[in-house]
């Protein structure tokens, strides 16, 4: 049997640790390498082989107390444990750990919505609460608030927030809406941030900053603790909701739509995470690449135009929504409509205009916080399931949008892929998301996808762009692009790591943060 033990851990030490963990969570919730169920912890979407991130075991606690005991045992036996919540962070690694052999600390069983306060509009949740669970909870209890979900209905509230994920309502910046954390530290002790540090009191999910340094951010995209609760603010169900689509006829319209949007965002006329989506992202809801082209290589422009015409889509498709009192929404709509009408050839659609259209409908559902998985139609574009997301940040400017679009499409075409991308415009910046789709059963295609991604990181860094989040296999490479002042940021992060987790047991390698003495891998 090919046994994938954690690096530097003997078989006996591993067995002793697993024995101790079984006593805490019960036999069935420690799944080790000889159990076929461990296959459910593989990353089945990345360009690298599944074996490169195959866990040695998974441990599934059901309470904070059990997490504390598991962390204490991991510390005692020096076992690296990789925390996941719902484990559906697809395109970024799913439930798999950073390196082969690490033990997954699976928090999915901790799935309670602990509190929803309808007067103050907040919730406190555990790590395993998925978007569907949370949505159903709100509906079941008839609560007058919306949730905000990512496009992946299988994802989870806490995991997405801690990984700086975004959604599509006016509360789409998830970390901005997070308030209060409970964290198990590497020695097994329990800590609450902000107002939660008061032995009594009720402001933990209400006021972020407490007293002294504000530290919640330290526990996001990091490995300094295991977060076991977060508070989050909820968006009241608005009296009026007006989603719309602006269909753009030319790829060159990207510049103008971004320029027109920026003041509407900064002034909060459009309050939600507006998105400008390229044709193929939306077309995948209706069709696949094989219906248009056999053989390798990206689709030519003339085929893109045929697809746009057939499915009544634009080369770019802009979506956003207005929320609030009906009078205010209508007043703002006059501003928004007249703004986008100035784009030559732009067509503006409201809900009534595209009833029953599955690509428009799923965007509408996301903008009102209804989980769905229509976006996974992208996995059918080439088939074979492989996908990794390249996601650089840029200013919300037309010049930057065009520059990134051209840079990324050029690399995609060099490696034989279609450009399938979107811009998610926040307040003053934009996340550019390239959905790099490949057939993971084709070794050559997988390698080209990996190489394309690695080149894009360097190309982007050369232009001053950095990624906001990434797949397991590129965490080191991206961390090393944030290297101003001789890499002082990453050096500080490693010092903090050493101070809080000197044994280096918590999620080693997360976002390029390795324990002192452990060197990052060079993978590209």
């Amino acid at each position, binding site marked *: 049997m090919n046994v994938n033990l954690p690096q530097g851990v003997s078989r006996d030490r591993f067995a002793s640790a697993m024995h101790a963990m079984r006593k805490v969570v019960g036999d069935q919730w420690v799944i080790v390498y000889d159990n076929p169920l461990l*296959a459910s912890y593989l990353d089945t979407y990345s360009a690298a082989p599944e074996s490169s991130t195959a866990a040695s075991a998974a441990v599934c606690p059901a309470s904070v107390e059990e997490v504390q005991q598991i962390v204490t045992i991991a510390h005692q036996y020096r076992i690296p444990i990789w925390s996941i919540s719902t484990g559906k962070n697809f395109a970024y690694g799913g439930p798999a750990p950073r390196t082969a052999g690490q033990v997954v600390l699976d928090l*999915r069983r901790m799935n309670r919505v602990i509190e929803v306060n309808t007067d103050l509009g907040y919730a406190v949740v555990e790590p395993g609460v998925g978007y569907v669970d949370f949505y159903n909870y709100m509906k079941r209890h008839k609560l007058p608030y919306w949730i905000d979900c990512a496009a992946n209905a299988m994802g989870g509230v806490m995991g997405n927030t801690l990984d700086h994920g975004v959604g599509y309502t006016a509360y789409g910046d998830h970390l901005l809406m997070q308030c209060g954390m409970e964290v198990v530290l590497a020695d097994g002790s329990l800590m609450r941030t902000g107002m939660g540090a008061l032995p009594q009191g009720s402001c933990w999910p209400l006021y972020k900053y407490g007293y002294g340094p504000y530290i919640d951010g330290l526990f996001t995209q990091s490995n300094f603790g295991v977060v076991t609760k977060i508070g989050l603010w909820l968006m009241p169900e608005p009296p009026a909701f007006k989603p719309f689509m602006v269909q753009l006829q030319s790829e060159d319209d990207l510049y103008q739509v971004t320029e027109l949007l920026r003041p509407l965002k900064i002034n909060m006329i459009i309050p939600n995470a507006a998105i400008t989506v390229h044709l193929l992202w939306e077309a995948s809801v209706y069709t696949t690449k094989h219906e248009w082209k056999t053989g390798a290589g990206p689709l030519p422009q003339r085929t893109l135009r045929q697809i746009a015409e057939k499915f009544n889509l634009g080369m770019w498709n802009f979506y956003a929504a207005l929320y609030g009192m009906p009078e205010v929404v209508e007043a703002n709509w006059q501003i928004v409509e007249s703004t986008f009408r100035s784009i030559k050839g732009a067509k503006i659609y409201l809900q009534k205009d595209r009833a029953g259209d*599955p690509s428009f409908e799923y965007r509408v559902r996301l903008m009102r916080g209804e989980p769905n*998985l229509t976006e996974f139609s992208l996995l059918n574009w080439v088939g074979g399931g492989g996908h990794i997301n390249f996601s650089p940040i840029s200013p919300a400017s037309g010049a930057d949008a065009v520059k990134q679009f051209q840079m990324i499409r050029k690399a995609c075409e060099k490696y034989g892929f279609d450009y399938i991308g979107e811009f998610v415009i926040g307040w003053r910046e934009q996340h550019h998301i390239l959905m790099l789709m490949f057939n993971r059963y084709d070794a050559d295609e997988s390698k080209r996808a990996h190489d394309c991604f690695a080149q894009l990181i360097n190309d982007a860094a050369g232009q001053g762009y950095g990624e906001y989040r990434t797949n397991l296999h590129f965490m080191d490479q991206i961390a090393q692009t944030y290297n101003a002042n001789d890499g002082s940021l990453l050096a500080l992060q490693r010092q903090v790591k050493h101070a809080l987790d000197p044994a280096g047991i918590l999620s080693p390698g997360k976002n390029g943060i390795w324990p002192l003495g452990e060197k990052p891998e060079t993978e590209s």
Partner: protein
Amino acid sequence: MIRAIAPALIAVFALTLASAALGAARAAEMPSATQRGEQVFNTRCIFCHGEGLGHPAWQMLALKKGKNEAEILGRPDLTPAYIKHVVRNGFIEMPPFRPSEISNSDLNALANYVIHPNGSPAAK
């Protein structure tokens, strides 16, 4: 004597009736295996395996097998063992699901529901 026993018997009978009613109420609250399977399907599977465009698994199955076989509920060629294997291991575009997400007992109920969505003797 009979008069003395009768109230006691009535009390016991009433208690038994109350217990039976409580048991029936509990049974009504407890979902059958089919209902449980449906609940799991509707919270874990339907987003991909629901009917029509917008449901990626339906879309892919429609391409590969035709629209008549794109709907997995009630498909006669599936077996519980196959469904359970695919759920735990994934299949091409479909990700695996862990025991912490879908327990073994829920998976049994799910597999039975997918094959017999209208209920079966084993599930009732």
